[in-house]
């Protein structure tokens, strides 16, 4: 019985409602944070930080945004990529219009632009649900892609049509563009993602989160209890898009250094949806598991044959990746809709009883 809650009695409701009511979970999260904040920066090289850690964290953040909307509030969206783009372009405009304001402030502000756009595109959710809502969000994706490509003001009339990140500093240390050290960028991304994950977990445990889940599970009953559907859904759209927007801004400013329309196209939306499905609908932990899995699968598929001295070409890697992801999506949708996060919970359940089979 390595993992158990027996004997840990809660004497107050406050203790019972804490983020990690079980002591092992609390110790576990402290250990993970210590590894992420201390061990990783000391041991990982730039390549690992840039190609594994930073993108995984950024996609996990965007996946949290999508999961709040789809997994918690039950509103299917195929527009997350577009909302990330709104954050990215907003941050770019803010950074060039107000160059003296700290870039971190711009990153947090840019989320509000995405939230506003998400709010507007969430309006149809009053009337339409499920598949039809997904189509409406798809329309928002295409509209936003069109806007990023055609409205030259958004990319400051660059000939390339791309946005290029200017160098900005924090306490004199460069944190954006190629002059910034990956480890600095990693630590900033990590701090922001940890902060916003904590906020999301506060939200879903409180009355707003419960209202979202109620609307998701049975909107009629929710309404009869006094939950107003439209404000509840719109808030989910706005907050979800805020997360996507901040993730988009981080993606450009803390990772890629430049971006164009394709960086926020429909494929990104689908990839995020896959992360949420495989990680687990309605689970914050699942967002990290899903993002880590989907983002790193192709890297892993390329690296493994090389360890054995063979080389597999890129096209083959892509095919294998499609087959694995496709298979897993079908598996999770049919067998375990709550994804990897649920499998982890089941594993914990087993550990609790270990070594007894029942």
């Amino acid at each position, binding site marked *: 019985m390595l993992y158990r809650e027996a004997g840990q009695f809660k004497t107050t409701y406050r203790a019972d409602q804490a983020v990690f009511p079980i002591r092992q979970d609390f110790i576990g999260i402290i250990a993970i944070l210590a590894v992420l904040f201390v061990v990783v920066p000391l041991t990982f090289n730039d390549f690992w930080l840039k190609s594994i850690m930073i993108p995984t964290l950024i996609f996990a953040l965007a996946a949290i945004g999508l999961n709040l909307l789809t997994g918690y509030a039950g509103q299917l969206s195929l527009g997350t990529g577009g909302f990330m783009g709104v954050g990215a372009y907003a941050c770019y405009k803010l950074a060039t219009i107000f160059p003296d304001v700290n870039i971190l402030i711009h990153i947090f502000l840019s989320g509000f632009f995405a939230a506003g756009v998400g709010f507007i595109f969430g309006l149809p959710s009053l009337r339409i649900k499920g598949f039809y809502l997904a189509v409406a969000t798809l329309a928002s994706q295409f509209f936003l892609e069109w806007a990023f490509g055609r409205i030259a003001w958004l990319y400051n009339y660059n000939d390339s049509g791309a946005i290029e990140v200017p160098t900005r500093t924090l306490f004199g240390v460069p944190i954006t563009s190629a002059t910034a050290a990956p480890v600095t960028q990693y630590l900033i991304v990590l701090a922001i993602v940890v902060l916003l994950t904590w906020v999301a977990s506060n939200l879903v445990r409180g009355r707003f989160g419960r209202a979202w889940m109620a609307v*998701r599970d049975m909107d009629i009953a929710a*309404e009869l209890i006094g939950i107003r559907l439209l404000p509840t859904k719109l808030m989910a759209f706005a907050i979800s898009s805020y997360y996507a927007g901040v993730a988009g801004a981080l993606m450009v400013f803390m990772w890629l250094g430049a971006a164009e329309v394709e960086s926020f196209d429909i494929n990104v939306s689908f990839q995020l949806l896959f992360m949420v499905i495989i990680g687990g609908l309605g689970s914050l932990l699942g967002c990290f598991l899903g993002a880590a899995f989907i983002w790193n699968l192709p890297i892993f598929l390329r690296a493994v044959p090389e360890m054995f001295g063979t080389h597999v070409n890129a096209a083959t890697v892509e095919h294998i990746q499609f087959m694995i992801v496709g298979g897993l999506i079908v598996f999770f949708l049919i067998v375990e809709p709550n994804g990897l996060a649920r499998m982890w919970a089941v594993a914990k359940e087993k550990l609790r009883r270990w070594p007894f089979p029942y």
Partner: protein
Amino acid sequence: MSAAEQLAPASRELLLNIENVSLSFGGVKAIRDVSFDVRKGEIRAIIGPNGAGKTSMLNVINGFYHPQEGTITYRGESRRDMRPHIAATQGIARTFQNVALFRGMTTLDNIMTGRTLKMKTGLFWHLFRWGPAETEELEHREQVERIIDFLEIQAIRKTPVGRLPYGLQKRVELGRALAMEPELLLLDEPMAGMNLEEKEDMSRFILDVSSQFGTTIALIEHDMGVVMDLSDRVVVLDYGQKIADGTPDEVKSNQDVIDAYLGVAH
């Protein structure tokens, strides 16, 4: 016993008055010109064969269906039709014939949602679960724990309701309705599909809700024994029409009611 309880039910203060309500769906007349009242503190049963329009009547009362004709007077305020949100804010709660719980949420969270209208703290505090947000959550948690104790469902507090057996789901749904601290509680077949023991438990809870909280209850039930034991007054519907209204004894001996229940051709 309070003074109100000693009065004969029919002379208590009026809480809800349904007058000449008719409701149809396309060609189907679900309710035809039905009038009856519900008085404060009583347990009012609505009975009748399947398809008589009982569920439709509850849906009219809490604003889910909008009748084509008639007036609904609740707490002295008259309306052609109720709206779900007004019903909720004015203290009308209900349970459903086919349990309408939030299946992915735990028992505790389901009952907590019943407190929605009583929770006011803004988004800002909830982002950090701090100050008023934390205080409010804990206050309401205490209220909800009282309901959990009352319904004897402590053991399933953290279980997602989708995994509970049907009988317990019905109990959780009652808990969610009670969490609204309703003035009028509508119960749609609260004992359908239960075994004898579960029915006895549920009957006890309904009587306790009535006597301890003074909640007015309108309930639909098929089991005549239960109806006779629980209710102060009974209204009988058949084919959307009211065929009888009175105390359980009066209704039991009414010839139209006997015919309706024995399936005599109309």
